[in-house]
């Protein structure tokens, strides 16, 4: 019998992408007990919201998360609109849904890469993150930013979509759908990946319900729950999609759910673009919001996001409460770690897709008349990397041909 030792993982640790502390009790390589300590990212945003106007709060709340920023902003604005009895124009609801689904694609592709990285399959990370650039470019073209889109305003949205942008999005969806089919093929046929992920981070159906898991983490334990269908908001009532569930109950199942959801995203986006009605994109909202309260729910890429807003008739909210999906899921992690090997810890934690910021921009923005020579475009950077490898005897140009043809 090996000695029992206690080791802290985090708050700062190379295996973690955000600060959290996992206190592990180990018997040899096995985790006997796991405790979670959170709060290292607490920035007092709820308190800050009480001192700012509703519009300022909209931008502040969008910055809770670097990935599901639109999720938080939409969740909040829906609550405010309910209190103020504002009827959001249909086109605005469609645009919110459009960006929401593009954000889900960005988030799930990002996750797939992280998952690959955590199990030593870095090729998958390189592939998915390259493909993710397709959706990042679309989001940047639509909203002006890769994350923190600033799309919402109280009463609607701030930016419309042009027919040219619609066409670009549709092209992007075709590329990504083809790539996702390839990832599904990998996930269902690549034995190394299947064996590495199967049986890891087990969470049976009963425990998922009992411990309050949300999003893909719950759906991979056969919990048939998705707020886009069950508690529809924005334009989800008007599109048809499948809620992807799986009964593997492990990290492998969570992978299948996310790649399955990616395929649904492309379908939803095509329907949105096809059915999008003409009309205004916002209604005028009052500066002061009448007294009242509302609870808004939103199916973020990681699961149920909840915002509670209480208004007191002024231009500042009385109370804003946020429950992000990771807070619900991280409690499940301690359970999943128990009786697993220490080496499985990074992927088990990554499998709930904890939120971390990813706002670094690859392409610097320079004024047309002030373009510095050291600023590379995406194409230049790609050519540079292909040439770099070619000089070392590896030729990747053939590999990239299909992708380039797709109009990236």
């Amino acid at each position, binding site marked *: 019998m090996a000695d029992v030792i206690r080791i802290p993982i985090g708050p700062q640790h190379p295996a973690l992408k955000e600060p959290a502390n996992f206190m592990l009790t180990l018997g040899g390589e096995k985790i006997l007990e796991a*405790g979670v300590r959170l709060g290292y990212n607490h920035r007092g945003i709820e308190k800050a919201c009480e001192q700012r106007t509703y519009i300022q709060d909209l931008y502040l709340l969008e910055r809770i998360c670097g990935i599901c920023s639109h999720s938080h902003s939409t969740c909040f604005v829906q609550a405010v609109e309910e209190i103020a009895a504002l009827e959001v124009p249909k086109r605005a609801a469609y645009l919110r849904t459009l960006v929401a689904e593009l954000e889900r694609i960005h988030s799930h592709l990002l996750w797939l890469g992280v998952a690959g990285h955590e199990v030593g399959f870095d090729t998958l990370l390189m592939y998915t993150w390259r493909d993710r650039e397709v959706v990042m470019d679309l989001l940047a073209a639509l909203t002006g930013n890769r994350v923190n889109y600033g799309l919402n305003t109280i009463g609607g949205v701030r930016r419309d979509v042009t027919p040219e942008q619609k066409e670009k999005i549709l092209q992007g969806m075709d590329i990504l759908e083809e790539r996702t089919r390839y990832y599904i093929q990998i996930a269902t046929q690549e034995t190394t990946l299947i064996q590495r992920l199967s049986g890891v981070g087990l969470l049976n159906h009963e425990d998922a319900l009992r411990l309050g898991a949300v999003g893909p983490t719950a759906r991979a334990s056969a919990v048939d729950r998705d707020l886009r269908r069950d508690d529809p908001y924005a334009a989800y009532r008007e599109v048809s999609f499948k809620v992807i569930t799986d009964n593997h109950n492990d990290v492998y199942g969570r992978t299948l759910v996310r790649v399955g959801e990616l395929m649904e995203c492309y379908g939803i986006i095509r329907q949105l673009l096809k059915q999008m009605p003409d009309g205004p994109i916002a209604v005028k909202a009052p500066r002061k919001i009448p007294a009242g309260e509302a609870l808004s729910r939103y199916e973020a890429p990681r699961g149920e996001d909840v915002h509670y807003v209480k208004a007191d008739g002024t231009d500042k909210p009385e109370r804003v409460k946020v429950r992000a999906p990771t807070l619900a899921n991280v409690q499940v992690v301690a359970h999943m770690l128990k009786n697993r090997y220490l080496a499985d810890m990074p992927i088990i934690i990554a499998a709930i897709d904890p939120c971390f910021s990813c706002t670094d921009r690859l392409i610097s923005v320079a004024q047309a008349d002030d373009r510095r020579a050291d600023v590379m475009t995406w194409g230049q950077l790609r050519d540079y990397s292909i040439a770099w490898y070619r000089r070392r005897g590896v030729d990747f140009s053939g590999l990239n041909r299909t992708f380039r043809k797709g109009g990236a």
Partner: protein
Amino acid sequence: MTDEETIQAELVARFPFMRDKVRVQRPRRVWAEVGQDHFAEVFGCLAREMRFTMLSAITGLDQGETLGLIYHLARENGLVLSLATGVPKAQPVVQTVTPLFACADVYEREVADLLGFQVQGLPQGPRYPLPDGWPAGQYPLRKDWKPESLGDAKAEKGGPTSG
């Protein structure tokens, strides 16, 4: 009768004191209010007998003389019942709901840290979300709390300035 109205009627039928305390705000959103004296039985009934199988969140509120709590209970079909209750600020003692909802653990630690609730029956565990060195009696989500109060508390204690 809609689902929401059925819930309203059932709650009033089971607990006559809930008359005028349950309102339907819109489809899938029901709000109810109950005093601490009847909280446990109403909450237990919603969770065990009325199919509210999820606890989405717990909101804590500073209402002046009282501290409020709203338990956002959800059904699998998307319907949410928000059950509000309150305790005097001078003695903000509530019972834990973790026996019914394991996930409440971190939600209850949050209202304890940020608003100063004393949650009885909560198992031993790390605090959330404030740092370990946070001075006692400082509840940042209370309306009268300002960041400056933290400086005062630390000066009084003569402790380190970093948490």
